[in-house]
């Protein structure tokens, strides 16, 4: 530890750390725009400039290492003028249409302009105009609103190992774009939406399907049903000012009913169904010498990533559809049949923490003929928007239970929302399938937590099963490279595209720091701890579905409805 002087106070700093992290830890409020914890500092925006005694110019604290005895001024006159000027200059080339912007009241640039007291248009001139790229089913890019902080570029490259976008051009005509300025839909973008999560302005947003849902709800000829993913009920609360990690499942169900959905189903039900299929698939692959290690297929960003960058691993992917698609498929088959509803008249909505689910729902293989499994995907944020739009008072609602036949879930299904959850649920059931008895200790602590790579060895019937759980695709890529190089001690790998799993997905509420994401994760494990049914194979509704309709896991009907295939995908890489 070394000590530095900040505004006359002595502050402890770690040797070789950047000044900004020492300042933040000591509680100094330093505005930032391009800074992202854990990623390479670029010093691009200069918002975090401070004055260091003896250094001629102002220095960007995010990219300036501390040294012993340094004297820092964080809010001197010179610093304040510089910060305000930076915002004024950014606004000089930014559309003045906050009222119409998706990030109104939730925009870092807007907040900074307000905090720094920007009250007039100091610099006026011609503004850059760019076409909006709405080609992707998941993400919309509006470069006119971009302030070139480069957070999206770094997340796409460093966290996801995709690099679909980068800075192009030079000087005042610099713009973040894809290769050859083509649409995101033909780029290597995997639709994860992590770029949206880090964008300080409205330059990146989800492709909204709210209008379609609202129109469907108004249409008397449509039977509109909704499902919600495991991670949504522990995240939605934040949109309404409730503490991160609070589970508002019952309230959310009541709100969805108030909005006019005929049935409210729980995607955690089909997470249990996924476990029955995927667990059986794993057991079958192990018993019959199938392709190993098997890799999970719930996360659509990861699926597209493999199809593009690692097609030699396509046979390792589980053929199971994701829980969203499985539920969509049984809604338009079993549910339609048993209730005498024409599948074409069902409008099936899902609420997901994810933007890639929008892409997944549109995959041509995700349906039968003209009937798609899912008709519209909303993010957690869009659901909050819908609730506000219809003036539903979340405080005035009485909790409500989801509808049969797809309302019951085990807590294992709920765990799908966190990295490690699918693995834990699958192991609990695979153990039962292989031994006929329950695991003595259902908690598999090694696969829990926020770490990007988690590994464990699990003994079942004398067989040692090697498992790995990764989240963030750069971690997945590292693991695939190890396997390509000959690593062969793994049987089963869970991959989630977003770091930490769906709780940190690209469709989740903004402004969540790591603590909020951890709180969401804890919310899920709290549910797992407090309820009696903790394994998917004890979900009565799932068992009934097999008895009445599907037959058995991996059976003929399952293959038709619940499994899919993947193919090498040509995109601009």
């Amino acid at each position, binding site marked *: 530890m070394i000590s530095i002087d900040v505004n006359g106070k002595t502050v402890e700093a770690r040797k070789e750390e950047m000044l900004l992290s020492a300042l933040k830890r000591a509680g100094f409020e330093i505005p930032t725009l391009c800074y992202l914890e854990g990623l390479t500092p670029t010093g691009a925006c200069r918002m975090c400039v401070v004055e260091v005694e003896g250094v001629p110019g102002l220095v960007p604290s995010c990219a300036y290492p501390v040294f012993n005895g340094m004297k820092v001024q964080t809010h001197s006159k010179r610093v304040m003028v510089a910060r305000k000027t930076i915002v004024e200059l950014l606004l000089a080339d930014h559309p003045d249409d906050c009222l119409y912007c998706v990030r109104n009241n939730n925009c870092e640039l807007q907040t900074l302009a307000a905090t720094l007291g920007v009250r007039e248009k100091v610099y006026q001139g011609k503004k850059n105009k760019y076409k909006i790229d709405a080609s992707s089913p998941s993400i919309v890019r509006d470069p006119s609103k971009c302030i070139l902080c480069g957070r999206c570029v770094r997340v796409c490259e460093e966290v996801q190992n995709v690099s679909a976008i*980068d800075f192009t051009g030079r000087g005042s005509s610099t713009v973040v774009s894809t290769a050859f300025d083509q649409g995101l839909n033909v780029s290597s973008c995997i639709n994860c939406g992590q770029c949206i999560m880090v964008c300080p302005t409205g330059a990146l947003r989800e492709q909204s399907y709210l209008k379609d849902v609202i129109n469907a709800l108004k249409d008397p000829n449509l039977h509109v049903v909704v499902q919600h993913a495991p991670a949504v009920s522990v995240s939605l609360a934040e949109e309404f000012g409730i503490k991160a990690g609070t589970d508002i499942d019952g309230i959310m169900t009541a709100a969805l009913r108030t909005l006019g959905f005929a049935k409210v189903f729980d995607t955690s039900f089909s997470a249990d169904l996924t476990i029955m299929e995927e667990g059986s698939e794993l057991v079958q692959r192990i018993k019959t010498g199938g392709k190993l290690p098997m890799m999970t297929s719930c996360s659509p960003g990861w699926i597209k990533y493999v199809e593009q960058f690692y097609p030699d691993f396509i046979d390792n992917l589980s053929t199971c559809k994701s829980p969203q698609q499985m539920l969509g498929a049984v809604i338009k088959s079993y549910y339609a049949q048993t209730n005498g509803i024409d599948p074409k008249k069902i409008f099936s909505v899902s609420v997901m923490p994810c933007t890639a689910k929008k892409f997944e729902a549109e995959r041509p293989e995700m349906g039968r003929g003209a009937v798609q499994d899912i008709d519209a995907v909303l993010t957690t944020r869009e659901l909050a928007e819908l609730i506000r739009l219809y003036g539903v008072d979340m405080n005035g609602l009485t909790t409500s239970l989801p509808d049969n036949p797809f309302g019951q879930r085990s807590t294992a299904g709920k765990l799908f929302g966190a990295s490690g959850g699918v693995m834990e649920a699958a192991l609990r059931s695979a153990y039962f399938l292989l031994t006929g008895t329950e695991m003595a200790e259902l908690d598999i602590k090694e696969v829990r937590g926020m770490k990007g790579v988690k590994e464990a060895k699990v003994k079942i019937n004398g067989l040692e099963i090697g498992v790995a759980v990764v989240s963030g695709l750069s971690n997945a890529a590292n693991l695939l490279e190890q396997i390509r190089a000959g690593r062969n001690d793994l049987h089963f790998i869970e991959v989630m595209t977003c770091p930490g799993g769906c709780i940190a997905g690209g469709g989740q509420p903004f402004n969540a720091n790591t603590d909020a994401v951890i709180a969401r994760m804890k919310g899920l494990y709290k549910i797992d701890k407090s309820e009696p049914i903790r394994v998917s194979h004890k979900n009565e509704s799932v068992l009934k579905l097999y008895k009445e309709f599907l037959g058995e896991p991996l059976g003929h009907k399952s293959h038709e409805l619940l499994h899919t295939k993947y193919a090498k995908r040509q995109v601009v890489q």
Partner: protein
Amino acid sequence: MLSTKAQDVLKKFPDAKRDSLIPILQEVQEADGYLSKQAIIEVGRHLKLSASKIYGVATFYNQFRFYKPGKLTIQVCRGTACHVKGSAKILDTIKQELSIDAGQTTKDGLFSLEVVACIGVCGLAPVICIEGEFHANVLPENIKNILDSYRKKVSQDD
């Protein structure tokens, strides 16, 4: 498919890393006359860099172009002296006459249009340069005649 010449360029840089990117792009452009999409993608594969990154670097520099050049390249000087003498109007007239923007090639493949910062003959402003031939003190009303003379020349050569 990548042109044979561009493939030869990549063969010259067998174990290249990202710091060889610009020399490789320069040589590919010299071989093909421009950077094709395929070339950018292949250079990316060769260096294990994404196409967006290569495209980003290439668009940073004026020296790279992304369209197949026409038989004749027209350079319009937009330096200070030419600007004062009305080069904006000259550029607009050429764009209209050819129905292309700067940085594009006409459909018949005859002309491509480039804007340059300063050719260095300010005394002749406004000046345009077609395949190395300078045209001094150009007026908008002369543009059609100048272009026609080249059209004629090319059709005679063919």
